[in-house]
Every structure is written in structure tokens, then in C-alpha cells.
């Protein structure tokens, strides 16, 4: 049950909202320094090729500084440092002569102006040896030689690559053969999800400035300043105290900044060689060749007893990861975890294979593997419900992993118990609000427009914390300080992607000290002034990041209490904080002695004047659980049987985020997550021209279609229900929300389409042509 708070649970304007709305906020692409050069990246026009020779003489005549694989240290690494070393595959180099996709980079130039840099890039001469390109998993798996990678490293152990298989992973619980024997009904289906492009507003970009002390300062587009620093230090052999990575607002990430972007390393290489500040802002086209969501293709077999109890499941997945590892091993792990943690199943087997192809390297995007897996698992639940003639909602309530059970959404090494669970409440309220049991169904409808109501449920983990160390790192360092006027500063390397993570930290600290939100500030942060923070990813911002701020705030409060006790001549344990709205002051009073009272400001100032010190504390905090933030969507759609277009009429979102810190932002997350999830279901994909290896959209937005505001329901028809839950391990009862807001959306839209026209799609996106095709043939796709 929810608790009452002074500040939490009420709508607040964002701290940086004014700056963003007025154009004052600085992003990497806004930075200019004296003497700065502009860089351009040299890229392969071929999907698979080797460079025989490279000639920079014409570019150098234009005054350009040039770097290429010829200057690069040969060290191999992984751009993503979230996993521990023993679970990290390394197949990247700073530059390579082996080009593995169209748009792969082999060097870069920097010049006085952007125009000159562009000109210099165009006159670099390259002699190519074209290699056979593998544009599909089948082609890649059949290859014996000219592999995309010959060898990679797992930590420091060399691994020889065969058939372009990047890695495999098997996760087994129980005995599936025995399990399937107990099944009365078995459903086996192949599912496929698209290569969705992040399309963050700001393309990945970077500015690097060499400093007088021989170090560098870096302003990258990143979700993880510390991992960026560690990677730069390692690749360029720089001591970490000479690499200062600044937290700067990014123009959106959606997962594309969990790993250090290649542009960051390339800009660093140019700055170190030229000894001048260098800036690279990538074009949208370059950005589209830089990163993309993991697609998935898997066969899911699930068996159930007559009464609806799931008894066994088998998932065999093949993942086309493109030309590099941005940690496919972790991706395979979470696929198994998200699946296993949706529904209870004693016997399960997951077999995942990650395959290299000559395509854009795949990485995390909002939801990581959860939208992909949830799409198939929820589709399968609907099919089972139909076969078993059990209400789909009841089937889920019977089998879902909930309160008191152990779950491992982030893969088999991240296990923790569930302490809060709003699933049943949200399913019931959602069904009621949308009229789920009053839907007409496809059989009763004729005419051009058919309506359908569908739903799906899912979750995301709130971070990757666990009681024991696993494959993934997870902690955040925070410093909380009470200033001499009673205001408070929070210093942490935690990132805010725009979802309000840092605001949440400030609000939770404000609640702890009972001071108004605007008296808590977030200090500018860089890697030199802060302790390690793993990354803002995995929906860990509020639960782990702001959770760390909360734990540290309590310690800082202890210091303040010590000073206040001395000041009031009382014992610390007897002191009470209370916010007096009239005076705008936070009072510290001794219980039972109302005359003994003061304010935070007075204590802090007194402590300074008496040389007692500053109330300040700093600590690294790891959360020892990562509770599931449950979400479900009920969706009503209208299918136009003359064009195959799907219109989303109504959405009822259910979110179990524990205590809701800032409802207006949390609702915004649900609107945004649903929007991109619906896009994944209906439109978004990057496909390839197999002959040229180019993206068919040619890196242009005109042919990378996303849903427009027109395609979203009226805000009045988008209802949000928050579950009445309190997460006991979370900061003031809070869990995460960001990725949970996405995960069930594609499955829910698909389910609604099925209800409207009686056809179940198992491959995304469901384009108008697929719907017309299916309507013509009258069977499932």
C-alpha cells in the first residue's frame, strides 16, 4: 500500500525544463572551443572488404590531420563495459583495415572547418579488396572462410570463430522432455522482431579537448561517463586521472549510449594526434549505420496442462547481431531471463545463438530483449488460452511470476525475490476500464473498419542489482551535502536521459530532509569529481541511482543530526524534521520539547562557524535486488480492411512502479514507451539491399517511418493506472518504469489486431501490406 509523502507523488516541473524549452541547454553538438578542429569519419562503401592501401596525401595538402588503422593500437576491446571482464567478448579495435559493414570506419580526418574536413575526407584514396558479404544469418552460418571475424577475445582468452557464430548460450532448468510429456496442449510458433533504429534526436557526437597537463576532457553522448573514461584510458594507454569525461545532457539515448560510441574514440584519436580540441557531430545517415536494436528470431514451444498450468517451455533463438559484439552474450542471457520471469515454468530450456552478419552492430534499445521476448510469450499465452478455452487474463494470473517468487529478468546470474506485485490489480482494472469483456470479436464484424481490443503484460527489472555478484556490474556513487543556508547539493555521475532520473534523486532527497524540491540541486558532474556509476540503463535510474542518493542522504542526515543535537543540547535520535509551508523553512525540533527548535539552515551555518564541519557524505551503494516493474497495456485498434492501416483508438496503461515519484513524468514515460512499442509493432524496421549492403532507407528518415502524432490516440483516450504498491527495498517504495513502459506494447497492439480481424501475426512489424495479404489469404501470419 502506498504511503503519504510531503513531496513525492505530486506533479513537479522538471529542473532543466526551462533551459530545454528555451534552448539554453548545452548538448555536445553545441560546444565550441578556441582552436577547435572539426572531424569527419572515413567509412567503407562496401559491406565486407579489406583495405590494401590508404593514401592521405591529398587530404594532408588541405591541412587535415589524419588517423587510420595505421596509427591505431591493435588492442581489442568491447565498447560496452557493463558486464564483468570474464563475460565480455572483445572484437572491436580503434580502427581496422577489415571493413565489416557499409559505413564501417577505418580512419578519420580533422580540419579547420567542417567544409574543409568534408573535402579532405573525400580526397582520401583507398585501394580495396572486396570480400564476400553475408547479409543474412543463413549466408553467414554457411560461410567457411572470409569470416567477419576470425578471432575474438573472451576477457583475455582467444576464441576462434567458426561459421560466423559470435557466441551461444544455453540456460536449462528442470527437464523439458519430462515436462512436455505432462502437457495436454503444446503450442509451437516462430516469432520474429525487427531491427528498430533508436532514432534519438541527437546523433552520437563528441568533443575532446587536450589539456595542458597532458590529459584530455571529453564531452560525449553517453549514458555512462565512467565506463567511457575507463575505455578511453585503456585504448589510448592514458592514466584515468588524465581522462576527464563530463556529464553533459544528451539529446536522447534509448540505449544507444550504454556502450561508448565509436565516435568518442575516433574524436579522441584525432584530438591526441592534432593536440587541439576536436569535434565530430555525426549525420543522421552515419548514426543509422552506427547502432540498431537487437532483432530476434526464435521458435517458442510451450506446453500446458488442461487446467492452464504451464509445464514446459523451449526457446531456440537466432540473433542477427550485425558485425560486432556490443555484448550479445548478455543479450542472450536476458532473453532467457525475461522469458523465464514472465511465467512460472519448472522445466525450461533456452538455446541462443548470436550470428555475425555484415550489418549495423546491434545493441540495447529501450527494453533490451524484453519487447522481443514478450511479443512471442504473450502471443503464445493468447494461443494457449484459445486452445484451452481459458480466459486469457485468468491464464496469466494463474501462471505469472509474482509476489514471493524468485525471478531473474536480467539473466541467470541476477536472481532476487519479488517483494511487491501489482499485476492482478492492474489486469483487472485495465480490463474493466477498456471494456475487455464487451468486445465484439472478429467473427461478428463486417464492413470496412473492424475494431479489436487486445492486451499484453510484461515487466522490466529495476536495474541489475542482486544479492550476489553476477555477470553485470551495478552500483552508483553519490555525495550529498548540506550547504550553509540549508540547501542541498547532490553530486553523482548518474545520468538522466530525459526521463527525470536526477529529478527523482533530488525529490527523494528533498523528502528525506523535508526540504522543498527547489532547495535540492544537482551538481555538474564529471569523472574526476565523482565515484563510479555503472550506467543509466536497465531501468535502474530511480531504483538504483536515486536509491543510492537516498541511502547517502540518510548518512548525511546523520551528520546533520549530530550537529543539530549539539546545537540544541539534545540527543540525535530525538530530533524530528518537519517542513513548515508558511515560512518555507525546514525545522529540526526535539520531541516533547517544542521550545527546543531550529532550522536546517541555522544548524549548517552554526556548524561552519564553530568549525564542526559540513554535513556531507559520499558512498557507493549497490542495490541487492532488482524488482520487476510490471506493466500492461489494453489497446483498442481499428483496422481498415481496404488499406491495411491500423489506427490506435484507445489505450489503458497499467504501471506498477511502486511509489510514483513524479506522476506527470511517469505518465510521460508510458505515453512514450507505448508510442515506440506501437511503432515496433506497426512500422519501424531497417532492412538491407543485399546486393549493395546498404540500408534500403539509405540512412534517410524519409524511408525510416515512425508513427506520427496523428497515429497516436488523443491524450484523453490514453488512460494511465498506477498500481497501489510499495516496494520495500526501493527508495521510499519506488521501482523503475522506463523500459517497462515499452515492453508489452508491441504484443498488446498485435493482440488487438488479432481480436479485430481474427489473424495472429508472429512477425513484426505488421505493415499494411501484411494485413492485406493476410486478409486475402485468410490465415495467420
Amino acid at each position, binding site marked *: 500500500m502506498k504511503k503519504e509523502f510531503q513531496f513525492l507523488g505530486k506533479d513537479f516541473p522538471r529542473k532543466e525544463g526551462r533551459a530545454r524549452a528555451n534552448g539554453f541547454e548545452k548538448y555536445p553538438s553545441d560546444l565550441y572551443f578556441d582552436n577547435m578542429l572539426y572531424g569527419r569519419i572515413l567509412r567503407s562503401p562496401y559491406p565486407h572488404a579489406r583495405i590494401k592501401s590508404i593514401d592521405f596525401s591529398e587530404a594532408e595538402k588541405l591541412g587535415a590531420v589524419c588517423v587510420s588503422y595505421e596509427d591505431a593500437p591493435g588492442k581489442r576491446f568491447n565498447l560496452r563495459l557493463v558486464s564483468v571482464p570474464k563475460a565480455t567478448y572483445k572484437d572491436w579495435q580503434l580502427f581496422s583495415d577489415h571493413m565489416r559493414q557499409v559505413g564501417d570506419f577505418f580512419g578519420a580526418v580533422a580540419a579547420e572547418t567542417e567544409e574543409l574536413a568534408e573535402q579532405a575526407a573525400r580526397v582520401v584514396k583507398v585501394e580495396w579488396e572486396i570480400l564476400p558479404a553475408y547479409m543474412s544469418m543463413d549466408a553467414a552460418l554457411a560461410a567457411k572462410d572470409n569470416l567477419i571475424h576470425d578471432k575474438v577475445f573472451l576477457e583475455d582468452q582467444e576464441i576462434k570463430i567458426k561459421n560466423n557464430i559470435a557466441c551461444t548460450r544455453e540456460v536449462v532448468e528442470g527437464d523439458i522432455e519430462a515436462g512436455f510429456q505432462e502437457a495436454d496442449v503444446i503450442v509451437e510458433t516462430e516469432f520474429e522482431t525487427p531491427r528498430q533504429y533508436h532514432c534519438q534526436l541527437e546523433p552520437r557526437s563528441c568533443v575532446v579537448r587536450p589539456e595542458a597537463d597532458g590529459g584530455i576532457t571529453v564531452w560525449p553522448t553517453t549514458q555512462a561517463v565512467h565506463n567511457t573514461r575507463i575505455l578511453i584510458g585503456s585504448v589510448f594507454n592514458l592514466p584515468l586521472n588524465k581522462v576527464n569525461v563530463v556529464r553533459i545532457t544528451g539529446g536522447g539515448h534509448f540505449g544507444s549510449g550504454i556502450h561508448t560510441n565509436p565516435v568518442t574514440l575516433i574524436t579522441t584519436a584525432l584530438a591526441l594526434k592534432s593536440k587541439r580540441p576536436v569535434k565530430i557531430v555525426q549525420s543522421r545517415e552515419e548514426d543509422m549505420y552506427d547502432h540498431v536494436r537487437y532483432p530476434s528470431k526464435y521458435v517458442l514451444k510451450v506446453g500446458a496442462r488442461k487446467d492452464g498450468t504451464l509445464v514446459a517451455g523451449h526457446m531456440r533463438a537466432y540473433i542477427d547481431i550485425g558485425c560486432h559484439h556490443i555484448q550479445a552474450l548478455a543479450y542472450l542471457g536476458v532473453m532467457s531471463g525475461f522469458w523465464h520471469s514472465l511465467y512460472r515454468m519448472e522445466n525450461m530450456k533456452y538455446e541462443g545463438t548470436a550470428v555475425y552478419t555484415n550489418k549495423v552492430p546491434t545493441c540495447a534499445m529501450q527494453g533490451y530483449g524484453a519487447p522481443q521476448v514478450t511479443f512471442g510469450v504473450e502471443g503464445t499465452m493468447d494461443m494457449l488460452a484459445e486452445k484451452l478455452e481459458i480466459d486469457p487474463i485468468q491464464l496469466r494470473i494463474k501462471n505469472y511470476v509474482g509476489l514471493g517468487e524468485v525471478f531473474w529478468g536480467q539473466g541467470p546470474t541476477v536472481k532476487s525475490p519479488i517483494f511487491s506485485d501489482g499485476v492482478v490489480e492492474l489486469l483487472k482494472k485495465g480490463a474493466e476500464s477498456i471494456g475487455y469483456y464487451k468486445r465484439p470479436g472478429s467473427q461478428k464484424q463486417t464492413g470496412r473498419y473492424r475494431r479489436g481490443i487486445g492486451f499484453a503484460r510484461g515487466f522490466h527489472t529495476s536495474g541489475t542489482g542482486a544479492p550476489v555478484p553476477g555477470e553485470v556490474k551495478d552500483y552508483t556513487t553519490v555525495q550529498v551535502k548540506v550547504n550553509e543556508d540549508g540547501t542541498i547539493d547532490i553530486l553523482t555521475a548518474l545520468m538522466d536521459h530525459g526521463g527525470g532520473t536526477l529529478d527523482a534523486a533530488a525529490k527523494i532527497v528533498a523528502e528525506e530532509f523535508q526540504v522543498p524540491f527547489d532547495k535540492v540541486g544537482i551538481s555538474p558532474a564529471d569523472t574526476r569529481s565523482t565515484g563510479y556509476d555503472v550506467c543509466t540503463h536497465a531501468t535502474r535510474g530511480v531504483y538504483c541511482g536515486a536509491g543510492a542518493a537516498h541511502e547517502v542522504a540518510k548518512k548525511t542526515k546523520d551528520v546533520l543530526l549530530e550537529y543539530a543535537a549539539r546545537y540544541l543540547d539534545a540527543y540525535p535520535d530525538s530530533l524530528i524534521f518537519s517542513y513548515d509551508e508558511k515560512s518555507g523553512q525546514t525545522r529540526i525540533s526535539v520531541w516533547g520539547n517544542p521550545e527546543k527548535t531550529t532550522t536546517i539552515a541555522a544548524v549548517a551555518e552554526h556548524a561552519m562557524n564553530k568549525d564542526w564541519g559540513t554535513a556531507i557524505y559520499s558512498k557507493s551503494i549497490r542495490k541487492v535486488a532488482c524488482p520487476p516493474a510490471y506493466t500492461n497495456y489494453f489497446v483498442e485498434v481499428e483496422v481498415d480492411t481496404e488499406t491495411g492501416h491500423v489506427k490506435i483508438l484507445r489505450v489503458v496503461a497499467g504501471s506498477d512502479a511502486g511509489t510514483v515519484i513524479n506522476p506527470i513524468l511517469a505518465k510521460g514515460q508510458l505515453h512514450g514507451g507505448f508510442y515506440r512499442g506501437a511503432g515496433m509493432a506497426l512500422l519501424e524496421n531497417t532492412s538491407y539491399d543485399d546486393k549493395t549492403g546498404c540500408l534500403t532507407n539509405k540512412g534517410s528518415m*524519409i524511408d525510416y517511418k515512425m508513427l506520427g502524432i496523428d*497515429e497516436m490516440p488523443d491524450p484523453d483516450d490514453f488512460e494511465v493506472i498506477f498500481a497501489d504498491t510499495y516496494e520495500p527495498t526501493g527508495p521510499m517504495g519506488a521501482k523503475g518504469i522506463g523500459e517497462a513502459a515499452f515492453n508489452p506494447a508491441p504484443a498488446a497492439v498485435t493482440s488487438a489486431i488479432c481480436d479485430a480481424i481474427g489473424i495472429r501475426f508472429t512477425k513484426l512489424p505488421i505493415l499494411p501490406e501484411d494485413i492485406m*495479404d493476410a486478409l486475402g489469404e485468410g490465415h495467420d501470419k
Partner: protein
Amino acid sequence: MRNFRFLQPDSVSTVLKAKEEERENGRILAGGTNLLSYIKMGRVKEGLLIDITRLDELKQIEDTENEVSFGASLTITELLNSSVVQNRLSYLHDTLTHFANPLIRNQATLGGNIADGSPIADTIPILLVLDATVTAASSKSERIIPLKEFFVGPGKTVLAADELLVKVSVPVHESSGVKMIKLGLRNGTACSVTSAAVRVEQDNKKLREIRIALGGVAPTPIRAYNCENALLDGLFDIEAAAGAELEALQQDINPISDVRGTAEYRRGVSVNLVKRALRSAAGMEV
């Protein structure tokens, strides 16, 4: 290397002189919404960019009894704001509200949309059913070309290398019903997958004249002559037009599969779009 020169002439005759000298190398810069993307994609690498955006001569609207003529460099927004378009060609106004997005409409010109020769240009099907003509001028002469004879292939038109499209003339069909429907992958800023326009003249519920035109189903925007004839031959009963007559459409179209849709899909929805445009043009419930 990209290598461009730039000319901003103060009269149409200067433009035509430059076209005569430069021929294919003289690139007309009107709204630039196509040309700049061609330059960015590397399809156009050099030449003289001839900026016609400031020529008032090409921004005139002539409103006569039977016809309205538009200067080629009028922007889509200017057309939308024109009272002549709003009052006398309201169906054209309706079509133009679906053109790309407001930013593009502020830049893109009517002449550019036609001269670009795209099979999916947003203005063409409706202009085809209205029997529009275009005027092409060179330094030596001027000629009027029926729009239905203007397109040759994707990006190819009958405009000669020294010619400039200066005017678009649209007959006013007071008693016709007209409707164009555009189908993209979404509503805003979407290239047409397929589009269809229909004009019908009825006489006591009997069909006197019909025009059907489509975009995105052939190498050029097309008139669907087979389908038009089939409908006329059948002593057309509009109520039944959903039937077999529209099957003739399949002989008119020859779509391809591309990044925006499959050929099969285009074949299927073409019929649906024409049927709907026809019913709407005939004043029936859609």
C-alpha cells in the same frame, strides 16, 4: 567532388538563356526540396544552380472563366492560401492539405513537383484528372503540353534540356465531382505508396465523362484508360462500380515492390482507392 555555381536571375528570360547555355547542367532551384536531397545523396554532383524563387513572373495566378493558370514557382502553401484555389478548385485545395508537411509545403513549388517527374508526386493524379496542361518555355519558343503526355519514366519528362516549366493550367470543371486519395505509411510527411484521383461528370445519374489517374503504380503517374473505358462502356451504374469494371484497372497499372510497399499490395489497394475516390467524386457515401 561537388562543384556548383549559383545564379539568381532577375527575369525568366535570363533563366532561359542560362538553360540554353548550360542545358542539363543548368539545375533549376525552386523549393529545393528534391534537388537538395539529390545533392546530398550524390545523384547531382555539379552544375549551375539557377534560383527561380524570386521571380514574380512565375508566381502569378490567372483566373479566367474556363481555366485557372498557376505560375510554376508558386509554393504549395501559396496555393493553399489562394482564394481562387479555395473557391474554384476546392478539391485541389483538399488534396494539397495532404502534401508532405507544413515545412515542405512552405518550400516546395507546384512546378517542381511536376518537373521532378516522380511517379509518386502528390499533385499529379488530381491534375491529370482535371486535364491540366503545362507550358514549357525555352529562349526560342513556348509550347503547351497536356500533362498526360508529360511523363516518360521515373524522373524523366518531355521537357527539353533548354526548357523551363513556367505555367500550369487547370481547366475548371464546374459540374464535375473530383476526389483524390493519398495513401502513405502514415499520415504526415509520408511518401505516397499509392494515390488515386477520379473525376466524374454525371447526367441524371448517367456517367458522361470519367477520368482516373494514379500515382505509385507505374514508372510514371498514369491515367487508367482501360478502367475509364470499361466504366464508360458499361453504361455505368455507379452503385455497382465496386464490381468487375474496376478489374480493368489491373491492365493499367504495373507496380513494383520497393521499400514502401510490395507490388501485390499496390495492386490490391489501387482498386480500393479508386473505388472510394469514385464514390466520393460521385457524391455517394464512402
